[in-house]
């Protein structure tokens, strides 16, 4: 086992010299994750040792120039195999710490991982976030085995998350991608994925690395690209997902812009595919599903509703350029309601809102960035409404509630297709 820090001259053969016939690659993108990455590295090493002892494996830390000693933590992280009752590996194991280049962001870090995977001709890869607190060695097994032993190309994660964790996923990305591509992948932007070496090479062949894909858009891009291009997909139940906030300083509207913008861009790329899909179907799920207790998440409802009201008040003239009158009337009415208890953004109105944002971007009515960033107050309104509605609900009840939202998106697909075709 050895750490290695190559120079910053890109990913070349020198960095992977001496590595041949590698079966498994696990990538960890990082940027100032010194607090948590040590645990992630140890969990990965334990997982590789426990479940793939005879396979040659590489751990790649693709770092964005951390200044908090993240890379040192990765190099120094060591595992006491005896304490976890594991024998030493028979296959080789190497750690590579590599700075990535290009636009700063998770997508650029993943690109480096894909390049090394292609260079080493690995059979199966996994990527896991560096901010994870709940990762266990079993995650490695669950993300890699479906690829190595079951012939799947892409393994999406399936976690237990707090009902208010992943609100962009729950209110927009999951229901929309499910309605579009017909696959019920519960965490399409989960952040931790398994994929085949073939799929890694396929990703590298795409010219997207100067777009939002290089940032927060990478997760939805990987999932959608795999689904839309007919790769064999499954999901793996990984248990609880407990992690640090992605980037506490990150602006919500920028995050929303990158993720939702990537979903919308992919709709342009794969319009011929999603327009033919009707309904949705479950995907194969591996892992033993169980429920876990999760830390409560404090929510500032007042602030979210205030931002929604302010957004509707100030941006109404702008919304008028692409939202229909009935939605505008509803938004004005909702923003004017003094009773917080009566604050409700119904699914039907939310789905129509999203569809008209999609269409506005598709028709290039006004600046795409302005359209996407103006979604933020409405998104906060929907989240506030969802929180009010599900305050007393259990995780199972919330899942059922989200199922209703997904159905609403699926039911409105014809409405979207009709208008999309009309403006194509």
């Amino acid at each position: 086992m050895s750490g290695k820090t190559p120079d910053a001259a890109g990913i070349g053969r020198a960095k992977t010299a001496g590595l041949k016939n590698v079966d498994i690659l696990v990538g960890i993108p990082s940027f100032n994750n010194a607090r948590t990455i040590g645990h992630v590295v140890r969990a990965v090493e334990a997982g590789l040792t426990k479940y793939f002892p005879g396979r040659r494996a590489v751990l790649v830390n693709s770092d964005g120039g951390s200044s908090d000693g993240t890379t040192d933590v990765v190099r120094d992280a060591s595992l006491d195999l005896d304490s976890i009752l594991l024998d030493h590996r028979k296959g080789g194991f190497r750690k590579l710490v590599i700075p990535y280049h290009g636009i700063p962001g998770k997508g650029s870090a993943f690109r480096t991982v894909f390049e090394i995977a292609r260079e080493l001709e690995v059979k199966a890869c996994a990527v896991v976030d560096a901010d994870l607190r709940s990762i266990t060695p079993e995650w490695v097994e669950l993300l890699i085995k479906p690829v190595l032993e079951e012939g799947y190309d892409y393994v999406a994660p399936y976690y237990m998350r707090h009902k208010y964790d992943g609100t962009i996923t729950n209110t927009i990305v999951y229901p929309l991608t499910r309605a579009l591509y017909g696959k019920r992948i519960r965490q399409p932007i989960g952040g931790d994925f398994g994929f085949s070496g073939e799929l890694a090479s396929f990703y590298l062949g795409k010219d997207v690395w100067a777009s939002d894909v290089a940032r927060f858009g990478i997760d939805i891009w990987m999932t959608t690209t795999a689904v839309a291009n007919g790769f064999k997909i499954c999901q793996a139940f990984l248990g609880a997902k407990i992690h640090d906030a992605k980037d506490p300083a990150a602006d919500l509207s920028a995050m929303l812009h990158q993720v939702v913008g990537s979903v919308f861009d992919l709709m342009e790329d794969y319009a011929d595919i999603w327009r033919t899909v009707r309904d949705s179907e479950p995907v194969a799920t591996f892992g033993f599903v169980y429920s876990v207790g999760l830390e409560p998440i404090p929510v500032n409802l007042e602030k979210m509703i205030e931002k929604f009201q302010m957004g509707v008040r100030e941006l109404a003239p702008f919304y008028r350029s692409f939202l229909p009158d009935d939605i505008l009337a509803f938004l004005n009415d909702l923003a004017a309601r003094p009773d917080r208890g009566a604050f409700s953004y119904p699914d039907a109105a939310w789905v129509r809102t999203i569809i008209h944002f999609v269409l506005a971007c598709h028709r290039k009515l006004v600046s795409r960035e302005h359209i996407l960033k103006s979604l933020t107050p409405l998104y906060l309104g929907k989240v506030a409404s969802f929180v009010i509605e599900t305050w007393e609900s259990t995780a199972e009840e919330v899942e059922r509630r989200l199922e209703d939202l997904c159905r609403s998106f699926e039911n409105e697909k014809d409405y979207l297709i009709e208008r999309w075709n009309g403006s194509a």
Partner: protein
Amino acid sequence: MKAFIDKILIQPLREVFQKLSAFAPSLLTGIVVLAAGVVLAWLVKLLVVRIIRILKLDAAFARSGVTEALQKMAVKDTPAKLVGRMFYWLVVFIFFILALSVMRMPVIDELLEKFLLYLPNIFVALVVLAIGWFLGNFLGRAALIASVNAGMKAAGPLSKGIKGAVLLFAFVMAFEQLGIGRSTVIAAFAIVFGGAVLALALAFGLGGKDLARSFLEKRFKKSGESDRGDGLKHL
């Protein structure tokens, strides 16, 4: 007596008549050119309006706020009609100048020459104003969305201020290009702009020192959650 009448009345009248008969063909040509111009202008107007409708530019004008701005200025025409009318008068004007030039009058020729030399300035000024208008709208809207997302109470005034500043800047540049009150306009602009910046600096300095302190503390001090009690993880 006859010689006297011939000298002060008949002779000048004859000269006028001679000049008029010498000028008449030019005048007639001028009138024909102008009439042809009016007909052509009418055709150009129809064509321009048709093209604007085919390209659905009316909708684009509505989205960019041009239609709303025109309505505020009590202009009842749609932008398509307005542009069509502008082209109409432009063609009429060009033919009017052509008509004047075929009349070969030295004074008019001189005026025309000066005017033609000045025309590029008008064109550049119009382009500057148009760019200023679109840029002002774009930046104003960008500021509005960003400040709404940041939860700033003064989002509306801030956006209007930015849009106004860009438009003011465009007007100053346009006037400078036209050479109208060059030094006065620049001085007025500097006074207004400098005054606004000074007022803002004083307002922030005196009225917002606590806000500034709190902002800087939040920005540079190590702290936990930035927003009171909100721990949502959106991704």
